[in-house]
């Protein structure tokens, strides 16, 4: 790629892959106006908690975060009022426990503020209350006041295990009462579960993790990232674009598979609008430097139409996880964790291969800083969305054909909640 550039914004036109009959008709989703009652109702949120989040498998972190025995991190899952410890035991197996001491029910691993996540490496998990220690296999390592325990109740203490599966290096947990109703494969669907095998996610060892809370429903962020239509307006400055009567940044492909959704768009990396981009080779879509070929060669599921100049593909994995690849082959995960009907925590993890030299590092940092500024533009809209919806000026809203994934997502949410309600009714509760 040349280092010189300077294209004008009108060249920032992506071919839209919209079929002749349109996406909405193609996927037979109907053209009704859509209600967003599901984003402003505390009662609906309580239903989502049990219908959607309780039975779901949740991504909590990459296996590389616990690459050595004793490494651990905690994860707060507020929507299920849960806290877990992910670790690797002395036999090098991943283990996941509830972050609770089996003695008096204290939260086990925390520092300063019990509601904050912690990570590190340790020989044993130490309870701050009575000093009992647990090995990474969950069994008691050291008991205190050993003479006072009744029978074997002290020695028998054991951390409670959380069902988990490791899928392509992504650790998923299930917090359903009585254990998972479905395996991760059944939950995800075969196509998704198998679709990424062989893709070397683990080569992207450089992890950047940022987060923020917003006073907005968790679905507002998912909706925001479910089309490219907003980009020429929301990101007008970084992409040197402008609101237009025409679709400037179209998606090549919108796809659906059960409750999973995918969005693909073309590459715009050759366009240099700013001096910083020329000098650093970092862009709003990430660094433009040589990455290993195997990171660029996406599996079929990530490039379903075989697009040669793919720019990005975003997998929206039910219910609240996105995995998004960017050319030349780095990826980002998003988690939209609900905290209340009108509050969420947004977590972004960016994964890159190791920089080989300073220029690589500079390009990565420039790409990440700009990417995060662009993401901040999306994120900063959410509270305005929530506040606007809560006015209830309208009962229903239209969605364009480019917003077909928004339509599909809200229909999926409604379907899962309705199914749960019917089951509850059948059970007489």
């Amino acid at each position, binding site marked *: 790629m040349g280092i010189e550039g300077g294209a004008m914004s009108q060249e920032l036109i992506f071919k839209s892959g919209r079929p002749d009959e349109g996406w909405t008709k193609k996927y037979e989703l109907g053209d009704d106006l859509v209600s967003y009652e599901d984003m402003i109702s505390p009662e609906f949120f309580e239903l989502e908690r049990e219908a959607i989040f309780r039975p779901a498998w949740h991504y909590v972190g990459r296996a590389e975060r616990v690459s050595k025995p004793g490494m651990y991190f905690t994860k707060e899952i507020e929507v299920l009022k849960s806290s877990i410890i992910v670790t690797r035991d002395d036999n090098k197996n991943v283990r996941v426990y509830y972050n609770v001491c089996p003695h008096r029910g204290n939260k086990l691993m925390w520092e300063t503020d019990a509601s904050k996540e912690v990570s590190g490496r340790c020989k044993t998990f130490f309870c701050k209350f009575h000093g009992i220690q647990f090995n990474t296999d969950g069994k008691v390592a050291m008991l205190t006041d050993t003479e006072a325990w009744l029978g074997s109740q002290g020695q028998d203490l054991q951390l409670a295990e959380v069902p988990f599966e490791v899928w392509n290096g992504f650790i998923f947990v299930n917090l359903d009462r009585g254990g998972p109703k479905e395996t991760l494969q059944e939950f995800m669907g075969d196509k998704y579960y198998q679709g990424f095998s062989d893709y070397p996610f683990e080569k992207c060892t450089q*992890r950047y993790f*940022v987060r923020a809370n917003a006073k907005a429903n968790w679905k507002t962020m998912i909706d925001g990232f479910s089309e490219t239509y907003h980009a020429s307006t929301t990101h007008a*400055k970084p992409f040197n674009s402008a609101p237009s009567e025409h679709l400037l940044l179209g998606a090549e492909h919108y796809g659906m598979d059960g409750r999973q959704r995918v969005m693909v768009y073309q590459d715009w990396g050759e366009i240099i609008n700013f*001096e910083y981009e020329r000098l650093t080779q970092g862009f709003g879509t990430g660094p433009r430097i040589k990455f290993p070929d195997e990171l660029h060669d996406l599996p079929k599921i990530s490039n379903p139409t075989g697009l040669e100049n793919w720019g990005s593909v975003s997998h929206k994995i039910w219910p609240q996880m996105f995995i998004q690849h960017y050319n030349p082959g780095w990826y980002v995960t998003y988690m939209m964790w609900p905290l209340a009907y009108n509050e969420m925590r947004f977590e972004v993890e960016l994964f890159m291969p190791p920089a080989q030299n300073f220029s690589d590092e500079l390009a990565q940092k420039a790409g990440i*800083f700009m990417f995060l500024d662009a993401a901040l533009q999306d994120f900063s809209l959410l509270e305005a969305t929530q506040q606007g919806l809560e006015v209830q000026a309208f009962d229903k809203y239209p969605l364009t054909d480019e917003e077909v994934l928004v339509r599909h997502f809200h229909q999926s949410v409604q379907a899962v909640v309705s199914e749960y309600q019917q089951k509850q009714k059948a059970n007489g509760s």
Partner: protein
Amino acid sequence: MDTIKLPEQFSELEPFIADWANHGMQAQYDKRLSSTIEQLQEFYDAVKPRILEVRAYLDDKDFDDYTEADSTLGRLVIAWVPVAEAVEVFKQPRVPDSKMYWEVVDEPHLF
């Protein structure tokens, strides 16, 4: 105390070290937010003409072989990035219509 704070050929940038050669993305971005656009412009103008030279100079070294002066130079140029994005793209320190910035929880540190 060692008075050489940057590799000699980049010594003209030393007055910027105290304010700008911060460690980590959070501190680097916070400095952008707490500066005026004029302060950002001054730092931007000073570093920009040297970026390609810095790249060529540091690319000759493994990260493990960086001297303290090299690391400081590297941080100074990385810190230039969010400043350049403010100056060139947004024309103001803060992303328009945003009231906060991300909490940077974790990031790699190569040098």
